[in-house]
């Protein structure tokens, strides 16, 4: 339990006393129940944060794109239009829910659930700060990769269930694209896991330090390449431009979510924006030092936790900005170029990285190239 949020709370005397008190009043060991309550509260808070992040994602998207095209963007609702996302939510909440008469109703209902569950499942292992990681499983990365494959299934079933040609094309493309780019992404993760020697985020962040020199990005040439492979891969896995073929609005109306209205559409959009957040968080934890701050200012105290969370969100926001920047800069790829890029460029490069890192470990162990140069 030591790598969970409950473990962090149990450091404090007051929590230990609370557990003892509850155990004595209830007559059995109450640590499980206390843990459940803490986990449930944390999960619900996280859900609110996630929904806010999703909303902020849409807002940031519109504001940054407006900035790049030199127009104001949303600016009517609230200061700088920041309440726009609430207005959007209310609008979507009040929209009529239309299920096409020829659609497959059962799959139409469960497709958004699959997409949301696939993203929310990964939130359990999100390393926000050293204490505020809800549960740092020993197979955290493996689990996250596995559970997020539900998103692809949700997109595919959403496209299938609509019984519309646009949706079907979008869903097929989405599934093919998401599964294809999973391979370079996983292989780039291997490059880091080889050096970290563990799948939990605690192990991955253990050897990284606050400064850029301690990051895995600049650990050696192979991880440097792996970062870019990973970054391109996550753009495609989350259906972001220039890989937004499943919902390319100029050819496929809106792709797999053409027939979804109101809240159902909102859940697909939310899942997409939250997934961008999650993969950006993983990118920051794997390659950019995650929540580590230089010289470990603050330590394990509460201030340290806040600083770490701030560091984490800053890095994620930067990656998020780059993702949006790319969207408004590059034109969309053609589908054959997409597959060529995945299978003929990224996958061989990722394999080369994996082999190279394994050889590096064999000769130099865990030493980074700075260690080798300056020693």
């Amino acid at each position, binding site marked *: 339990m030591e790598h969970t949020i409950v473990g962090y709370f149990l450091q404090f005397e007051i929590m230990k006393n609370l557990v003892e008190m509850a155990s004595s009043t209830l007559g059995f060991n109450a640590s*499980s*129940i206390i843990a*459940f309550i803490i986990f449930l509260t944390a999960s619900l808070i996280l859900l609110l944060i996630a929904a806010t992040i999703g909303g902020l994602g849409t807002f940031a998207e519109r504001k940054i794109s407006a900035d790049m095209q030199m127009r104001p963007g949303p600016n009517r609702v609230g200061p700088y239009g920041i309440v726009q996302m609430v207005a959007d939510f209310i609008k979507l909440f009040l929209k009529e829910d239309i299920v096409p008469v*020829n659609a*497959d109703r*059962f*799959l139409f209902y*469960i497709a958004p659930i699959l997409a949301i569950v696939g993203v929310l499942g990964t939130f359990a292992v999100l390393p926000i700060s050293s204490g505020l990681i809800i549960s740092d*499983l*020993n*197979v955290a990365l*493996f*689990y996250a*990769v*596995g*559970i997020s*494959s*539900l998103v*692809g*299934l949700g997109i*595919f*079933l959403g496209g*299938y269930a609509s*019984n519309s040609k646009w949706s079907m094309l979008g869903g*097929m493309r989405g*599934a093919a694209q998401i*599964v294809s780019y*999973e391979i370079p992404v996983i292989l780039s993760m291997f490059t880091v896991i080889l050096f970290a020697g563990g*799948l939990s985020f605690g192990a991955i962040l253990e050897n990284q330090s606050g400064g850029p020199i301690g990051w895995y990005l600049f650990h050696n040439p192979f991880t440097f390449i792996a970062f870019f492979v990973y970054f391109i891969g996550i753009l495609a896995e989350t259906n972001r431009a220039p890989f937004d073929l499943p919902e390319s609005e100029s050819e496929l109306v809106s792709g797999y979510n053409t027939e979804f209205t109101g809240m159902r559409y909102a859940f697909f959009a939310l899942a997409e924006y939250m997934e961008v957040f999650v993969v950006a968080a993983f990118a920051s934890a794997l390659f950019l030092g995650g929540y580590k701050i230089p010289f470990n200012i603050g330590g394990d105290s509460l201030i340290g936790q806040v600083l770490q969370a701030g560091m984490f969100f800053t890095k994620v926001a930067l990656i998020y900005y780059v993702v949006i920047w790319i969207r408004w800069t590059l034109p969309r790829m053609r589908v054959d170029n997409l597959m060529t890029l995945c299978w003929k460029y990224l996958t061989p490069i990722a394999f080369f990285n994996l082999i190279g890192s394994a050889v590096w470990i064999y000769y130099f162990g865990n030493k980074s190239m700075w260690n080798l140069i300056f020693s």
Partner: protein
Amino acid sequence: MFLQVVFILSALLTVVSAVMVVFTRHIMYAAVYLLGSLIGVAGLYLTLGADTLAATQLLVYVGGILIIMIFAIMLTGGQDFMKNSRKSFLQVPFMGNVKTYVFGGLAALVMGSIGTKLIMNVADRFSEHSEMLSYQSTIEVIGEALVTDHVLVFEISSVLLLGALIGAATIARPIKKQ
């Protein structure tokens, strides 16, 4: 306590989904119920302390096998689409009739009684008080086992995958236009 709750939920999900796979009339629904069953089995693995296996189950089955099964359904399910209604999607890939279900039920009855008889032998012997594997995480133990004791099967599995890749790619390659 929590262990029992997860066990009951996973067991229910597994069994109900498996039964629904048997009785649904729609091949796509069968695949979706299979998804429920697979997730339930992953939950059962968790209750047995096999976290690596649960993650593998999710990654390979849900992310891989299920998706290509749905691909295969899409690639085979749609003949006579344009002239028939969507009824054809339910009927053309025959999902069985009463006769076959009777045979299947009889076979299941026989095997089920034999299996129950076998299970009865161990019914009251291995209870929940027997201790779990004392690994915090199975992944490192499995990793060590894969490169030491079980290295041969590890390498042979790669040969198997190579054969499957080449064979399937050769079989499924589009027919060239004559």
